[in-house]
């Protein structure tokens, strides 16, 4: 069957600094077709779209392999401008709108209609006078096309978010010769009714013969509106299927499914975890962390277990530990081992025995220019007054004791370094992570929270970190909450895994539960889904 595709991307491969992020991807879209591009975070969707748009980031990192055809003609897209000329438009996730401009000015940005004047004839086109009337007329036409009833001379500032999305669309369709429109997670910021209208608009545009690539995580929307879809996983193509041939469970499996590499060898597990012995009881907390908002979460962590928190980026899983530690504005009640923790007091959780290993290792977690010894002892010194010698008038740092402790930690956690006085900035990612954990352990906590412990470290080090956490749990009975975007990691070590979506707990699953369950919980039907990073 030989369809006329408006866009074909053949065998696209891309490497970033030796890491293969895309492997032989094919993507094809026919005119008037709504095509979904699906995949988890890091599956390669953004890279693929960057290639299609000729973004500088692609060319600055050595280009890509493969060919792109528009209307059957091979093309070279080396700048966003070229993509525009070929009739490819994009509705951005973050609004590319200027609040101080009117709707007309926003729609016509960079493509203003202007009339030549005497001066412009001498000094060039840039001094032509703008034809506000003609611009308003065009804007009105574009707004009418998508059925948005709004005065074109209103300023964008203060308009509801839903309108802004439509103005973006109006801007794209106002461009002459638009053939292909890309919607990058357009419904992520919309309310349900606004999202419905957006889907209607997409159908309308498709009827006019414009091809649409719809990037989203919401399976229900994909089922409702698309004709076909391409699913990516870990930079490779899973399949291109017609929507009518699949069901939501199958899509979830295609997105998540992968062979589970074992990160943890079987160990003796003689723990007894009782569902009545709750060490941390969180009731209805809300955390105002930008980009990772938590909107009312209840959790009960049992003593001695490893509890996983997973979910897509931007859904709020990172917000939970930051909220407990009081790093962002938090409301709700947190009871830890019988004590109330006030999240408004910074350090309250630390004092009461919760240690936290931050997800931002290099930013928040470590003092990069300081020595390993300083990094390990710092928090305990500040919070608990350890490693201090009391001289009556003043307390001074007890170098001897600190050094001994640091050496001890380096030995037990197997931190590869030249010695306790090495700057942590010089260590590898995995060893830096161990320093973070060593610091947390120095506090002798009853509960350890680790966020993204394996981010940015290689697979061997990953395994070591996971083993270390398991060892701490099994041998010392330490309760651990582990927050991670890597489902595989959570499933190899955790006893229970909570999946966060839209700032709320979607489901609490067992590691043995099937892939599809996880997939549906993450990108679930009926759930607001995530923003790409």
């Amino acid at each position, binding site marked *: 069957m030989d369809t006329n595709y408006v866009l074909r991307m053949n065998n696209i491969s891309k490497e970033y600094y030796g890491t293969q992020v895309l492997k032989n991807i094919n993507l094809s879209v026919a005119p008037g077709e709504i095509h979904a591009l699906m995949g988890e975070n890091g599956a390669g969707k953004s890279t693929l779209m960057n290639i299609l748009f000729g973004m500088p980031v692609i060319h600055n990192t050595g280009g890509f392999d493969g060919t792109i055809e528009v209307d059957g003609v091979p093309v070279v897209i080396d700048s*966003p401008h070229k993509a525009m000329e070929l009739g490819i438009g994009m509705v951005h996730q973050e609004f590319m709108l*200027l609040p*101080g*401009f009117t709707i007309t000015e926003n729609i016509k940005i960079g493509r203003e209609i*202007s009339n030549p004047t*005497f001066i412009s004839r001498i000094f060039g086109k840039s001094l*032509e006078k*703008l034809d506000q009337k003609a611009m308003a007329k065009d804007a009105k036409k574009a707004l009418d096309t998508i059925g948005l009833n709004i005065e074109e001379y209103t300023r964008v500032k203060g308009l509801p978010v839903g309108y802004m999305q439509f103005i973006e669309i109006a801007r794209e369709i106002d461009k002459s010769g638009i053939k292909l429109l890309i919607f990058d997670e357009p419904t992520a910021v919309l309310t349900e009714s606004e999202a419905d209208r957006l889907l209607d608009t997409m159908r309308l545009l498709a009827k006019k013969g414009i091809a649409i690539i719809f990037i989203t995580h919401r399976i229900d929307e994909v089922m409702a509106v698309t004709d076909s879809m391409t699913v990516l996983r870990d930079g490779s193509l899973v399949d291109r299927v017609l929507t009518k041939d699949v069901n939501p469970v199958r899509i979830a499996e295609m997105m998540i499914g992968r062979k589970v590499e074992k990160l943890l060898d079987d160990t003796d597990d003689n723990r007894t975890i009782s569902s009545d012995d709750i060490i941390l009881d969180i009731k209805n907390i809300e955390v105002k962390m*930008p*980009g990772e908002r938590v909107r009312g979460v209840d959790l009960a962590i049992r003593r001695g277990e490893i509890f996983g928190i997973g979910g897509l980026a931007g859904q709020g899983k990172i917000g939970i530990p930051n909220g407990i530690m009081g790093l962002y504005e938090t409301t709700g009640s947190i009871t830890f081992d019988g004590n109330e923790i006030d999240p408004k007091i910074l350090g309250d959780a630390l004092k009461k025995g919760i240690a936290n290993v931050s997800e931002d290792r290099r930013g928040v977690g470590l003092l990069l220019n300081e020595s390993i010894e300083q990094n390990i002892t710092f928090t305990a010194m500040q919070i608990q007054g350890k490693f201090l010698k009391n001289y009556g008038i003043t307390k001074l740092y007890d170098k001897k004791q600190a050094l001994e402790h640091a050496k001890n930690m380096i030995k037990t956690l197997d931190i590869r370094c030249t010695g306790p006085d090495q700057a942590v900035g010089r260590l590898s990612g995995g060893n830096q992570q161990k320093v973070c954990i060593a610091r947390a352990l120095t506090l002798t906590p009853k509960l350890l929270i680790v966020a993204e412990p394996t981010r940015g470290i290689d697979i061997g080090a990953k395994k070591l970190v996971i083993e270390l956490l398991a060892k701490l749990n099994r041998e010392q009975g330490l309760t651990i909450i582990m927050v991670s975007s890597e489902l595989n990691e959570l499933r190899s070590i955790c006893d229970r895994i909570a999946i966060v979506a839209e700032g709320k707990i979607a489901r609490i699953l067992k590691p043995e539960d099937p892939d599809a369950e996880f997939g549906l919980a993450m990108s679930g039907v009926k759930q607001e889904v995530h923003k790409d990073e």
Partner: protein
Amino acid sequence: MKNNFFTYTKKQCSDLIKGIYSNKVVLMFLILCIFGISTTGKPLTYTISEVFSRFSRNTFLVLALIIPVLAGLGLNFGIVVGAMAAQIAIFFVVYWGLSGVSGLLLCILLSTPIAILFGYLTGALYNKTKGAEMISGMVLAYFADGLYYLLFLFILGGVIPINNETLMISGGVGVKNTIDLTGNLKYSLDNISMLILVRTILTLYFIVSFANLWVRKNKEGRTIQIIKLVLIPITFGITFIPMVSQFMGTDRLLLLDAITIACVIAIIYAVVKLISIRFIQKDKDTDINRLISILIVAVISYGLTYIPAIYDITLAVYLPVCTYAAIILLCGFNRWLLSTRLGQNMRTVGQSRTVANSAGINVNKTRIIAMCLSTVLASWGQIIYLQNLGTFSTYGAHTMVGQYAIAALLVGGASVQKANNKHAILGVILFHTLFVVAPLSASNLFGSALIGEYFRVFICYGVIALSLAMHAWKTLKKPEVAKGDK
């Protein structure tokens, strides 16, 4: 119709009041000025004529700041380099012994390319320091100061031989502290008579219209063009009528006459427009409320001159016509620029560089153009300033230019992201009224003019600091709101 017009007036008035109220800086200065004026112990005529002369001297410089604000470069502390370009030009013109109009023209001719070069360099620097333009501008001003000293203290005379005892320090290396412009450039712009101005403008307009008719490709509106071409020589002819040419032969215009002329022009403009909209185009949609309000305001302003107190003032103040014409032309230029594609690009860049970039606008180029324009205008502004002042302090004339101009703009209600002609004009009036009044009031009230002097310096820096702090505070607050709940 009447009802309609009333609602329009009401809305405009309430907007004005709201605008003043929401802008506390303007309100504060208004109160300070009124208090100051009432306590000077000098006649009102004195204060007002002082303010008018300072207005003509400083406004051009302040107007030069508007374009960079629109292009998102913030308050351009770098206009100091523009002032330096002007001073270099003035030095050479004085050295070559040119005077009057020819000297002035040569000054402009010389300073413009220097200012364009400086503006380009400043723009290139700002492009490297995006987001920190204002502090770079300040530091740049100090750096340029050093180079300026090198040029005037060593290179002139030391490297370039200059034989002029009145200009140079005895010994021949380095320029004297002050250069007296009396007899060469002093009042060279202020003293151009109205007659010459009007005739020059008419000639230029004729040439432009003629060329326009010739270049224009489509034949639409040709008759209007031809009518214009006929009308211009007729107007030109009118200036040769003895009575008219006698009246226009002066270079200073009595304030009373200026108000009368402005009112007459406004009324004629409004009436002609009204007639053409109502009866020729029969256009019902166009808003004519604005025209009616222009008519009414013009009539009221004219009526006000019959009040004895105001009448006395209007008879005491003389305006240098050409300087005011230059200010009006620059206001017009700023407005015109905004209606062009380039102006729109500048506004886009000013609001968001990312959006501008994705819309295919060359951000860096646009910013450099904005800087060049601003620097050139600043250099012209400095020429106007110095020719009015009459003495040129070689090493000090430029140092405070940036601060004073910026403070004046901010007093008028402008901010780091928003500025227009109105802000500049209102700001200059308020700021310089305070400058005139503060030492007088202080010596009247406390017996020491110095207190007033301190006060006005304090005000100048205070206003800049306040505005920058508010800007920083706003930009800090913004991202949180944007990223917050939907």
